[in-house]
């Protein structure tokens, strides 16, 4: 329908207008550093992204209380991309060109990131992207503070294969039908085949966004799991479809002891609208859980709940990613003494900031960061209990080592390579698989 586009555009324009309007008086002040916040506050992704917008406001408020950056106060500029990706590119351009922001924190879905990428490249600005993604990308103007597949998907599969995880031999890769699950599943499938899993022991299934009738698929999973081998589901199901999926699992009596589900997109925020009693024991792989017991995390949660004015609000992994990204940006600006994009890009690599799980997040030359990998089991209070974690921090890998077309590629944004897809075999930049 043609109306859909028109509708969203109209709405978004109206909303963007209404949201930026109150900012106008503030813009008159010259001595501020403007920080763009590019998240969906309406539409399907609002469920996840609204919290990230609040997180950014929270971080900026904290930083301002500490005296700002370079002696200047930070000023947030919020726009609503209304879950509409072409609009996201337009609004990114508006943020940089009209509002004059020095850095943008934003996007959730990969399709949003892909559509704003050319804008950041063309206008040479900075984007901090806080969500786990499929990898196979590294761009000079983008910093990936979420997990790449080797920081989430691969360790999760390793855990399930281990004795602790139940020595799984049969795999269901279930995902929503778009780029992140497709690419992640491609990497996982290759990884499983390399590990000696037979092709008939892998079942791949895709569903549309917002799929709500899971009866057939759950019943298929049940049948697939009844082949005498230990079976697990690796879920890249995203967004709203998760609640009906887990509900159907619970109702059809699939217990975590029989067929565990490990999810990459289900966190505290997604579970907060949900009675998790039937889900106890199902797993999620992240780089942060709210239940992690460290003093840093305790302080972060307390400050966040005070800021948002509710002691029941949860924290989650992308929030931590935004916090790390924000702190790294602040450190880079202070080191460079300037908010210029080139100065920040040159200075940010190698900077470190503590994460909330007791480790250190370091910005790597490929614009990814180091992260611990944690596997948590869902508890009946909607929190996760960490059952396994990597011993060391895992450096993010932009190009997967398990796909034949990308295993020779490396990203390095420092001199002398300065390239997002450097082919280590031909020693050239921009080398593709051929």
């Amino acid at each position: 329908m043609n109306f859909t586009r028109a509708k969203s555009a109209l709405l978004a324009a109206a909303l963007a207008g209404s949201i930026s309007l109150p900012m106008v008086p503030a813009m008159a002040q010259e001595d501020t550093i403007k920080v763009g916040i590019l998240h969906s506050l309406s539409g399907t992704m609002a469920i996840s992204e609204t919290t990230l917008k609040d997180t950014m406001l929270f971080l900026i408020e904290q930083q301002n209380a500490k005296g700002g950056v370079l002696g200047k106060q930070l000023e947030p500029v919020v726009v609503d991309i209304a879950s509409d990706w072409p609009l996201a590119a337009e609004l990114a351009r508006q943020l940089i060109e009209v509002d004059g922001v020095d850095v943008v924190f934003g996007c959730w879905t990969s399709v949003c990131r892909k559509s704003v990428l050319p804008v950041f490249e063309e206008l040479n600005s900075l984007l901090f992207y806080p969500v786990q993604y499929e990898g196979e990308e590294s761009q000079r103007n983008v910093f990936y503070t979420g997990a790449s597949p080797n920081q989430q998907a691969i360790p999760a599969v390793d855990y399930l294969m281990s004795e602790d995880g139940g020595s799984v031999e049969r795999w269901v890769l279930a995902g929503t039908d778009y780029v992140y699950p497709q690419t992640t599943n491609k990497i996982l499938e290759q990884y499983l085949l390399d590990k000696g899993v037979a092709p008939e022991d892998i079942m791949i299934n895709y569903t549309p966004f917002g799929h709500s009738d899971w009866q057939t698929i759950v019943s298929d999973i049940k049948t697939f799991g009844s082949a005498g081998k230990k079976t697990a589901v690796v879920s890249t199901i995203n967004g709203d479809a998760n609640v009906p999926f887990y509900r159907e699992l619970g109702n059809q009596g699939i217990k975590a002891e029989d067929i565990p589900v490990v999810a990459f997109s289900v966190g505290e925020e997604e579970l907060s609208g949900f009675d998790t009693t039937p889900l106890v024991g199902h797993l999620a792989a992240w780089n942060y859980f709210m239940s992690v017991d460290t003093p840093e995390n305790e302080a972060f949660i307390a400050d966040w709940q005070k800021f948002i004015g509710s002691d029941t609000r949860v924290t989650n992994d992308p929030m931590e990613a935004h916090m790390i990204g924000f702190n790294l940006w602040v450190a880079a600006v202070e080191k460079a003494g300037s908010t210029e994009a080139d100065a920040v890009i040159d200075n940010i690599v190698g900077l470190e900031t503590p994460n909330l799980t007791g480790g250190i997040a370091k910005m790597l030359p490929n614009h990814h960061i180091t992260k611990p990998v944690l596997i948590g089991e869902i508890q009946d209070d909607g929190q996760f209990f960490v059952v396994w974690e990597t011993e060391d921090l895992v450096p993010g890998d932009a190009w997967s080592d398990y796909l034949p077309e990308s295993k020779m590629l490396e990203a390095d944004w420092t001199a002398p390579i300065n390239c997002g897809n450097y082919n280590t075999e031909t020693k050239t930049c921009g080398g593709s698989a051929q």
Partner: protein
Amino acid sequence: MLTQILRLALLTLSLLLPTQMVRAQDAAVDIPAQVTALGEASLRELGAIVTTLASTGDPSVVPVLTALGEGNLYLDETSGAVVIQRGSSITDPLTGEAVDLGADADLSRIRVNNGLRRDISAALSGMTLMSDNPGTRLSAAQGFLAKPDAANLPLLDEAIAAETEANVRSAMQAARAVTILTSEDASVEDKNAAVPQIVSGAGRNAITILTGALANAPDEVKPTIQSAISGLEQGRAVWGALQNVWFGVSLGSVLLLAAIGLAITFGVMGVINMAHGEMVMLGAYTTFLVQLVIRQNFPGLLDYSLLIALPVAFLVTGAIGVGIERGIIRWLYGRPLETLLATWGLSLILQQTVRSIFGPTNQMVIAPTWMSGSTDFFGLAITYNRFWIVIFALIVFFMLLLILNRTPLGLQMRAVTQNRRMASAMGIRTPFVDAMTFGLGSGIAGLAGVALTQIDNISPNLGQNYIIDSFMVVVFGGVGNLWGTFVGALTLGVANKFLEPYAGAVLGKILILVLIILFIQRRPRGLFALKGRAIEQ
């Protein structure tokens, strides 16, 4: 209690000498000390303690292990005591007596993972196989099914001999058969004899167990297992088709619920109401609020909160519907495009209002106990929530049919929609009937919202997911005909579920859309077209 002790005593006597010696050794285990050690143990240590506790065979550890597996075992960080907490009652795990920990108690749960939960249920099976409760015995037998161990054979034999309930005994026999099939020393004849027992006793798990056993079975037994598996698979294929029909009916009933309100506003009144989905969403939020009030004030009624929410949701969304009709739609009769745009704008306003009030995250409606879980109806797995939604959709449909065909209001509605001026001339207050009709359609959308809380997210976007499907059903079924909506919804549901296994969920949905487009080309008025002069206007 006494019978339990007697049984245990008997059991101990009947056991072989070596086993007795093992038991005697384990008597040295200091159970209270081990239980206290659970408090500070790591996951690996927990596993060791569970094994030690289970090996004592002492009935007093059963509640400890049960509580640990269910996540009800807590450590009091202040005193170091390990206690069971269920609701507000705190008891000693071994004695079962109430414990008063004082005001400064700091309880933290002793957490377990999946592997440990499996070990605990296996350990408990051994200890609860002689329980007085048939349900406990059944789950113990099922525990043995999942984790067969030749050492348990004497215990199983004992239990089978004493068992009085037929279904429990059949599960025990299956457990015994699995143990024989997987044990190293059993003879080929015994193994061959074990296969049919598994088929009859292990229910839906039979295929899993047999396929698992196939690889390690001796060659003489393999043909028996193979033929048993293919027999089971044939049965599954037949039931699989029926299962698909059920899935389709249940999807169809959801479509019917969502579309039937639209069948009135769009079908009967001819108003294209794009805010119909939002009425569904408001019904769901009403359910959430009703449950919130009940949970805070009358926790005893929690199981009936959905039933209480039904009339509330109907009245709330019905009233909003009347408001919309009086406020917006009545100015736009006969101008479909303007109606479409106005209601579209309204739907966005409603969504954003709800988002501003309740926040963008999902809200939680707890499923009542009678709507959780599933039952085996012969070979069909029927989940209760879907079952009740099918029943509910049928009730709503026939009630609506009754209202339209058998009440004065229904008569007036039909009169007004068929010939407004004539109806008006006959003394019918057409504006009132319009408002009531629209209110009825909206109220029914609210009822659909109550039902949808059981299968979908309660988020501001809830309605959007159903509006396209609803229009599809109404157009496909034939505008202005409730039976058309009924048949249309069920047809689409079943067709969808039959396409899904072959084409996948994404392609299946596309195929359905293509089929509907082709169908509408052939029959523009849908399945059940209205005939007569009225429709030609």
